[in-house]
């Protein structure tokens, strides 16, 4: 119990630090929010212009949920890279904290920040469109959001290994990975329009199942029991990705300490 308390306390270091960074970079946060809103509107207005309400909802859901999942992924995957840029990586890594506490803190703030950011985007969209969500099954939406969050935390942790191992190219690799997830997950279209090999890759993206499940729940009011084909892959990913990511992070840290890669700045 004492160990858990200590870990939670240590996690708060990252939550508080990231909150302070958000405050200090508030101008950039506002700029980024404006960009997100503009991007969301630019995409969803395509549905509006075609007069297709279902397409509009598909695009709104894709925009909103990708915005949230991408933030969760970025905040965790780039946690190491941020510290490289700031030059604080060594200080953090020599502190007496366990890595899961560090990554838990990063993940917790990512989820809070992602939710707040997404609510703002949603509010902006709501001002432009009259969204008909009368049939929505909110239980399904919450369940898929939760499962998707856990899966993306796991992928984010696994991806954060890249900047730890590759001083300069790691952040670029994370960016490419995020781009691939965006492309194959059916954010703005059905994955059926993708080439077969991309459809194969899409099976390994949790966003594919999250978006499918949320769309079914929000647009058609489908319950969780009818969406088990989307639930079980997410469950597996949630269970596998986090421990796998933590294990990989531990190995990468050892490698970085052996090769002196904690020191270098990207």
């Amino acid at each position: 119990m004492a160990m858990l308390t200590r870990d939670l306390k240590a996690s708060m270091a990252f939550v508080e630090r990231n909150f302070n960074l958000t405050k200090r970079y508030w101008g950039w946060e506002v700029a980024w929010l404006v960009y997100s809103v503009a991007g969301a509107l630019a995409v969803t207005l395509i549905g509006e212009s075609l007069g297709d309400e279902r397409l509009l909802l598909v695009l709104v859901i894709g925009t909103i949920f990708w915005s949230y999942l991408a933030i969760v992924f970025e905040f965790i995957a780039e946690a190491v890279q941020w510290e490289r840029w700031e030059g604080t990586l060594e200080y953090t890594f020599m502190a007496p904290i366990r890595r899961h506490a560090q990554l838990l803190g990063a993940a917790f703030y990512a989820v809070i920040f992602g939710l707040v950011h997404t609510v703002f985007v949603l509010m902006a969209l709501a001002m432009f469109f009259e969204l008909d969500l009368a049939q929505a099954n909110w239980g399904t939406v919450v369940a898929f959001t939760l499962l998707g969050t856990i899966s993306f935390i796991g992928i984010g942790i696994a991806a954060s290994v890249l900047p730890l191992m590759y001083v300069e190219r790691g952040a670029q690799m994370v960016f490419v990975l995020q781009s691939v997830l965006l492309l194959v997950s059916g954010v703005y279209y059905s994955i059926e329009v993708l080439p077969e090999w991309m459809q194969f890759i899409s099976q390994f993206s949790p966003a594919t199942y999250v978006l499918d499940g949320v769309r079914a729940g929000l647009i058609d009011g489908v319950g969780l029991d009818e969406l088990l084909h989307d639930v079980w892959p997410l469950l597996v990913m949630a269970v596998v990705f986090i421990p796998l990511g933590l294990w990989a992070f531990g190995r990468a840290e050892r490698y970085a300490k052996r090769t002196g890669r904690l020191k270098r700045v990207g």
Partner: protein
Amino acid sequence: MQTGLEPQPKTLTDQRPSAVEVPQVALPEADLTVQVDVPAELPALLAEHVTKRFQVGRKKRPVMAINDVSLRIERGEIYGVLGANGSGKSTLIRLFSTLLTLDTGRVEVFGKDIERDEMAVKRMINRVSVDAAFFKKLSPFENLAYAARLYGMDAKPAKAESIRILSRLGIAEKRLGRPVEQLSRGMQQKVAIARALLTSPILLLMDEPTTGLDPRSKLEVQSFVEQLRDTHDATIVLTTHDMDEAQRLCRRIGILNEGRIVAEDTPERLKALVADDHGQEPTMHNVFMTFTGRSLDDDVEDDSEDEEE
């Protein structure tokens, strides 16, 4: 079996029975002591046959950054590691800081092995690096609060301690709310020292803490280290390429050249060792020249040391 997470003699309020009490280094006004649960005869730092190589490029031979270094640093001692740029000083500090793994050899901090008991060692040490590494947009307060939480301290007492330590270093409370990037290099280094002392380390690793500072800031930092030496039982490992600084602050000096300790003793004894080679009273410059065959006067001030890739 030790997990490395057992309570360690870090916090200011730890009242467990102990064999030895080491006065808390940073806070002379307060009646605070750090309890050390180790026998008095244990050295603060013991390194035996430590070696570290780095692979620089795929087809090149590994670079030997640290070559069979052995050290024994006693509790309360300020030990200087004197060496040119690229001699391996920062690598040595990084090895002691658990930021690098050893290729061979072993290192103990107050009897704890830095690899087997890594977490326990981390609780006992802190480091001031040549570059005051901060979140530059955050204020000193915010950076110190982050450090305090990392080391398990509560925010409120940590803030009070921060103010006290920083005022001791000549930084007024009103300056602590501004972003670190708005502070001078000297100020930043003082905040870095305060951050290290805040966590009550019983072994402080100072890696060229005065490099790049203006003369006044350099003197202030040196004076502060002197105060620690004179009024407290602080154990400090200090790397420098400043001969006068090493002589002024350190009880013993190890001269590091190409990853090897080539000489080690008190400044006076080191000078006595080379006295016969010089017609006049030898200086630390003479000592360094004699043991390394080079002069530090030509040394370029950069931190592009030896490790990497």
